[in-house]
């Protein structure tokens, strides 16, 4: 089914904006922030040019942006937004509300370091802080994945067994501003794939009035949170189903995670986002020298695919987990912490090393990744978190 004719040169931001144009949501509310500004800037041009039927709300802050999306989504609209870093931080309060009210809002998010010191470049500390907000988290390796994942996210979030919001993230500048050839779907294909949003309950349905977001104290809050947890659990199955359906229709399948030359690997790296692409290049080079190295790329961090990770890593001797965020004296940073926890269930566990890299957009080079692999292969690792690329 793959039709390579529709290759277009797009940055990550352009790819996400194009996906939004083809999705044609009812409402987009957003506030500009580097490096995500372009997504909604380009999208607002689509609105101005009449290419979409979307109601575009230019709000006064990110808090208002997500609030407007929450109102729109509760009213029955398909709502989307986009942000980054400080903007996401300003949304935190509303993120929990969007998820708690079970509103399937899709957010185009560009990973950027949090201040201070002020920095506009890519690291994953912004979304890592929101990892327990109830949003699904999809991390993209490149513009193609960003484009495809935006389209899939609509279906995943609106699935009746899920009904949760999601962030679809790209690494700031590395993906958001780099031009890549991506294969775009035709407008009709996307329209057909995402379908029409048909919420079960919507506030503008005056014939069936209901209350949404009433106070929920000791006697019911826990039950509603339990439902939300269950929805996130079920999302694993839905992410896979939608990813497979996407593959059947358009030739690119998606899963919770992706492995690269992992089956016979002695040492593996676990990473999410654009660095996975760099790691693949290193693997190819090292394999030529007979070194058995592999990759586990985590595409979806929430829900966390613990069973798949366990299955993929059970025979690996040594695993290096790379985090682009630190836990500030947590035993290990978040991705390593969760990977490590889920592997604890195995009788024969891989050794695990933790690496923090790329804070504030610090470049992660082929040499640094080669160095990590060589360290893993040597077996000489310690429990202490290593900081790759920081000057001593």
């Amino acid at each position, binding site marked *: 089914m793959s039709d390579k004719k529709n290759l277009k040169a797009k940055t990550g931001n352009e790819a996400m904006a194009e996906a939004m144009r083809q999705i044609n949501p009812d409402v987009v509310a957003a506030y500009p922030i580097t490096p995500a500004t372009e997504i909604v800037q380009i999208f607002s041009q689509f609105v101005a040019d009449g290419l979409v039927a979307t109601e575009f709300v230019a709000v006064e802050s990110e808090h208002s942006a997500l609030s407007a999306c929450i109102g729109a989504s509760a009213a029955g609209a398909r709502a989307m937004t986009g942000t980054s870093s400080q903007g996401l931080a300003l949304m935190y309060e509303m993120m929990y509300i969007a998820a708690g009210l079970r509103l399937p809002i899709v957010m185009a998010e560009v990973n950027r370091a949090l201040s201070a010191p002020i920095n506009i470049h890519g690291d994953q500390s912004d979304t890592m802080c929101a990892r327990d907000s109830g949003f699904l988290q999809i991390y993209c390796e490149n513009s193609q994945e960003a484009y495809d994942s935006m389209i899939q996210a609509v279906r995943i979030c609106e699935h009746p067994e899920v009904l949760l919001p999601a962030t679809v993230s790209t690494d700031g500048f590395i993906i958001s501003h780099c031009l890549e050839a991506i294969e775009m779907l035709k407008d009709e294909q996307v329209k057909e794939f995402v379908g029409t949003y048909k919420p079960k309950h919507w506030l503008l349905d005056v014939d069936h009035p209901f209350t*949404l977001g009433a106070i929920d104290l000791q006697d019911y809050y826990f039950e509603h949170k*339990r439902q939300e947890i269950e929805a996130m659990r079920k999302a694993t199955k839905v992410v896979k189903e939608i990813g497979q359906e996407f593959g059947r229709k358009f030739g690119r399948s998606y899963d919770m995670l992706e492995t690269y030359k992992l089956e016979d690997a002695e040492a593996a790296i676990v990473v999410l986002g654009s660095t996975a692409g760099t790691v693949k290049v290193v693997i190819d080079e090292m394999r030529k020298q007979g070194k058995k190295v592999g990759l586990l790329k985590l595409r979806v961090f929430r829900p966390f695919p613990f069973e798949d990770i366990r299955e993929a890593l059970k025979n690996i001797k040594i695993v290096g987990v790379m985090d682009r965020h630190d836990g500030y004296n947590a035993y290990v940073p978040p991705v390593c912490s969760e990977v490590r926890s889920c592997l604890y269930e195995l009788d024969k566990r891989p050794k695990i090393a933790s690496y923090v890299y790329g804070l504030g957009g610090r470049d992660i080079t082929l040499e640094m990744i080669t160095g990590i692999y060589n360290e893993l292969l040597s077996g000489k690792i310690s429990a202490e978190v290593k900081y790759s690329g920081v000057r001593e």
Partner: protein
Amino acid sequence: MGEIKVARKKGWKELPEGDYLEPGSAAVFETGDWRSERPVWIPENCIQCLFCWVYCPDSSVKVKDSLMTGFDYKHCKGCGICVTECPGKKGNKAIKMEAEKK
């Protein structure tokens, strides 16, 4: 000690998904049970002006075929506004307040 009845609360599997509540309505609750005085209708003094129906803050004046027919004591709080507003017939009010009997 009298037996205290506690309604069984639904578990997470039974509750509607999310913080969703069916529309609330006082129609399904008895809200007049703390009333200390009740209005009593005296039909022979009633001129069917429906002032009581207009002024009742709790929609507790029952009307059928445009005629006042009595009070809905499940919801009437006994505020007495109907008595104040009732013009009656020749100076005789068509509604009077009586103490609630326990």
